[in-house]
Each structure stands twice: as structure tokens, then as C-alpha cells.
């Protein structure tokens, strides 16, 4: 009897959760798209899956300019150029950060597939860039060594 009551309560809780999620969704959509699932992913593989780029092919047409050794992990400048024709998006993942996905940029007509950004790195890690062109994903990595991490206080 007790077990059954538990089950009913859990079910009711799940229903309430679904209802709230359903209600909140349109508001979030209005506020502008932010891929919560991908940015909340704790491993690079999960983040890649969430942005639909799990099977990205390696490419040397993605140029990552960054220091080999970053003394201060709180500010690591990374410059990315995609030479793949028709690049529409670039995503940056820092594989060993607590939340690997750092940023994603969508380029429309009028913008070149180029971005320069300063990121935080918790420790020495591979930085993975995923470029999307014509629905296909391409990837390149560069290791950046970090002397002082920049994610904590």
C-alpha cells in the first residue's frame, strides 16, 4: 500500500514537472535561442552530440590561432578562421572544462566565418573547434597548456 502511494506521488510530481517545463518553453524561445542542453553538457562528447556534431570529420581547413602556453587560464585568446566554403557556424569546445562548450556562432550572409574571443580554461586541454558547412561538420583541435587555471575563484 505504502509503495503504491509513493508511486502515485512520484507520478504526480513528474506530471507537474512536465507541465511547468511546457509552460516555460515558449518564454525561453522568446528570449532568444540558447542551447541549454549543449552548454550544460559535462563532457565534450555529450556537448558535440547536443549540437549534432558527434561524427565530425577532421579538417585542416580550420585555422586555430592561440598561444601554445597560456600563463593565465582566465584569459586565453583564441582566433578561429574556417576556410571551408559555405561555413555557417563555428563552435568552440574546451574539452577539459567543467562545461566544455564555450561558444557557438552562427554566420549569416554578410559575415566571414571568423571569430576571435577570450576564453577561460581550467587546465591544460585540447581546444576543439567544430565548423558547420552545408549541413556537414568538420573539426580541428589544438592543445593549449595552462599554467594557472581560470575557472575557479
Amino acid at each position, binding site marked *: 500500500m505504502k509503495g503504491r502511494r509513493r508511486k502515485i506521488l512520484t507520478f504526480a510530481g513528474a506530471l507537474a514537472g512536465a507541465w511547468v517545463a511546457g509552460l516555460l518553453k515558449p518564454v525561453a524561445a522568446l*528570449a*532568444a*535561442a*540558447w*542551447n541549454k542542453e549543449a*552548454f550544460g553538457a559535462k563532457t565534450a562528447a555529450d556537448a558535440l552530440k547536443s549540437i549534432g556534431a558527434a561524427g565530425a570529420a577532421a579538417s585542416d581547413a580550420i585555422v586555430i590561432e592561440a598561444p601554445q602556453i597560456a600563463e593565465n587560464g*582566465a*584569459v*586565453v585568446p583564441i*582566433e578561429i578562421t574556417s576556410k571551408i566554403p559555405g561555413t555557417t557556424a563555428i563552435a568552440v569546445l*574546451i574539452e577539459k*572544462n*567543467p*562545461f566544455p*562548450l*564555450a*561558444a*557557438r*556562432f*552562427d*554566420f*549569416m*550572409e*554578410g*559575415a*566571414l566565418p*571568423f*571569430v*576571435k*574571443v*577570450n*576564453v*577561460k*580554461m581550467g587546465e591544460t586541454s585540447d581546444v576543439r573547434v567544430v565548423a558547420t558547412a552545408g549541413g556537414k561538420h568538420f573539426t580541428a583541435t589544438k592543445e593549449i597548456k595552462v599554467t594557472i587555471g*581560470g*575557472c*575557479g*575563484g
Partner: protein
Amino acid sequence: MAAGPMKMRATLDAGFIDVRVLMTHPMLTQQQSKGQPHFIQNVTVKVNGTTVVEGQTSQAISRNPVFSFRLKGGAKGDRIEVSWLDNTGETNKTEAAVA
């Protein structure tokens, strides 16, 4: 810290417009803030009112973020607008003409 001023410079370079923008924002991570992260989530670049770059960012972007973008096919005098929106709903924008 509330959202501070932004600075932007857009210059016509060889064949493209170089846009550099500085945002004043603490960009607090989960760890720094004990579970109350505060960071920019969306960055939008517009040229004469048309969106050309849509960025989504995480807490891994450095404090007071600086971004560079390159735009093609523009001319001097084009109006560039960059805006951001953070996870608490704060927002800011700046505008500059291409020099």
C-alpha cells in the same frame, strides 16, 4: 556588478570590415559564484539592421569579453550594432559606423 558600458570599433580593412567589441560584464562561472552564475548567453551583430552573426556563449568566456568579427561586402558608414543578453535578462547594445 551591473552591466557597464560597451566599446566598439569597426574599420574597413583589406576586403572586409573588422569589428571589435568590448563588453563590460563579470562573466561569473558556477564555481566562482557558488551556484549563481552570471554570464552573457547571446551576442548579436547587425549591419544596417540585418543580423549577420548570432553567438551563443557560456560562462567559459573571459570577464569583460572582447570579440572580433569580420564582415564582408560592407562600406564605410554602414551602421554596426552589437547587443548581448545574459542569463539574468540583462541586456545592452552599442552602435558604431564603419570608419
